[in-house]
């Protein structure tokens, strides 16, 4: 308690020097929370978007299906049994049939993934109900990226060619019924959605599906289908966010290092200038290690003041930012990212940042303070440089 009181008094007494150190450290503190809060916010929104648009609570894949291997797609389909059909009817499962096809927009040729999905599904945010709103041609729904790449818009028609289960080529004309705007590029680029039953007919694969999207909170295992949980399906996104965090750590570390260097310098100067005080402490009955403790606490107390100062301007800033979000405009960066990101500040993030700042400050305060343990108190009392 004595050490804390003394530290507080000395820090306040040091005036501008203290406040400069505290300001830099508080800036580092707020920036670390801001940066990680933005990434966590991005991660949360992306996960939510990906679940809403693509994976729901998990997917059952045909054992041969590998979304990264186009050669696996052709034969990765199997009939749905009665149990699955029941779940499809009650809306807890959404089947998808996936095959390759080619479209010819404006005479050009473009390979696409053709995905059949029930038009009446409500599990995913895909506007599949639009597949019944158009009666002319084969109605299709595409994303804005696909629409841009193929120069297609609502009402446009485009020729599509595919091979059915026997390998026979067939073709028809698609009518773009809707163009959706999703923040999830993995459901958009090079993909066309048509009605599930229409696709089964086109392919000659009556009753077959490639994968099943589930909305069940605790999905059960199903024979003949490989269950892929959220962790697996969002692993790519998690890895991306982690790599972004890793990159951010460099910036945060540099900023924190500058702040800690200022504290280190202050400690060195303080121990150099206050030798008489150190000698007096020892004469009054403190051991040398207790004096080391006093100076370490004093240095580490910079972090407490920095946290208080950071909270003073950081909390209103974070509340404001959380209300308006940080807009990145309509930029497509090829990864799931909302146009406006709302940062997320978890208790864990705040506590770990506080812990980091306090521990790092204590360490840089302790390092120069160790010198006190080797000081000769009689020389210190005279204020002699040691």
């Amino acid at each position: 308690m004595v050490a804390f009181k003394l530290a507080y008094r000395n820090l306040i007494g040091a005036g501008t020097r203290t406040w400069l150190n505290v300001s830099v450290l508080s800036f580092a503190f707020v920036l670390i929370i801001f940066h990680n809060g933005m990434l966590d916010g991005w991660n949360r929104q992306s996960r939510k978007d990906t679940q809403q648009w693509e994976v729901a609570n998990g997917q059952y894949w045909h054992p041969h299906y590998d979304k990264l291997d186009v050669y696996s797609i052709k034969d990765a389909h199997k009939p749905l049994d009665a149990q699955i059909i029941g779940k499809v009817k009650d809306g807890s499962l959404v089947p998808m049939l996936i095959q390759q096809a080619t479209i010819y927009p404006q005479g050009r040729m473009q390979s696409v993934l053709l995905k059949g999905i029930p038009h009446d599904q409500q599990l995913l945010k895909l506007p599949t109900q639009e597949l019944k709103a158009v009666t002319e041609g084969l109605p299709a729904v595409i994303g804005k990226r696909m629409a841009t790449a193929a120069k297609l818009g609502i009402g446009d028609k485009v020729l599509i060619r595919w091979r059915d289960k026997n390998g026979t080529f067939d073709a028809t004309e698609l009518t773009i019924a809707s163009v959706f705007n999703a923040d999830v590029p993995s459901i958009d680029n090079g993909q066309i959605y048509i009605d599930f039953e229409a696709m089964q007919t086109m392919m000659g694969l009556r009753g077959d599906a490639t994968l099943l999207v589930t909305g069940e909170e605790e999905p059960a295992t199903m024979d003949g289908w490989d269950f892929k949980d959220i962790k697996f399906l969002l692993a790519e996104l998690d890895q991306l966010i982690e790599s972004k965090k890793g990159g951010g750590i460099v910036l945060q570390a540099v900023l924190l290092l500058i702040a800690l260097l200022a504290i280190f310098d202050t400690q060195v100067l303080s121990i150099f200038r206050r030798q008489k005080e150190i000698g007096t402490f020892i004469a009054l009955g403190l051991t040398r290690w207790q004096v080391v403790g006093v100076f370490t606490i004093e240095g580490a107390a910079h972090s407490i003041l920095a946290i208080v100062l950071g909270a003073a301007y950081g909390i209103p800033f974070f509340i404001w930012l959380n209300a308006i979000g940080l807009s990145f405009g309509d930029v497509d960066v090829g990864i799931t990212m909302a146009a406006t990101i709302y940062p997320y500040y978890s208790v864990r993030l705040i506590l770990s940042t506080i812990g980091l700042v306090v521990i790092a400050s204590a360490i840089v305060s302790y390092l120069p303070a160790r010198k006190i343990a080797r000081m000769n108190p009689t020389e210190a009392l005279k204020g002699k440089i040691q």
Partner: protein
Amino acid sequence: MVKRIIVDDKIFQDMDNQIIQLEHLTKRFPVGNGFFTALTDITLSFGKGEFAGLVGPSGSGKTTLLNIIGSLDVPSEGKATVLGRSIAELSQKQAANMRNHHIGFIFQTYNLLPVYTVYENVEFALLLQNISAEERRKAVMQALEWVGLTDKEKSKPSMLSGGECQRVAIARSMVKRPKIVLADEPTANLDSKNSHHILQTMQKLNEELGVTFIFSTHDEKVMQYLKRQISLADGKVVADEQVELVSSQ
């Protein structure tokens, strides 16, 4: 006015009353490749309630001797026993504990903590002793009363005169009721009036509380108050005199 009369030139020999015993004490400091001998074969003892002074010119070893008695330093040779404990055998913690409970220090430059008020400076030593707030308050106010500074309890050292600062230092050294007070050139930075004032204060505390005061000084004003004068020259005791102070009308 006081008149000094030398009454005895023998070392104080009341063995039952001795609280400090120095036997053949030698202290050397490393200098370059060799050593500087600050004290040579010092044998002295101090009894309870003494008001004694180590006098001599600069470099005679006064402060070194005080530092050893105060357990801030250890002898190179010989033995220093303070309050029954050999200084050389004390651990850092034991030495700190002894200083905290039984030894008060008064320095030439006061050495007050600048960020603390007068009250807090005096209270500091008690904070290390885990004494209740109520008892601390009582002890601090009494110590400030002894030195006549109760009205300055909320002042910072920077707001006080040199004499007042030294009185705070006296209060700080006395607040824990130590057995020994070591005063290193306590009047060196004070004018004559303040010097007499603080010396009278210390004399009064010595008489009333029976605390042993040992000064290091070459100030004539201090010497007038000493009941025992130990003269040092080149690290050796050259005289040890008991004096009686007689008021002259």
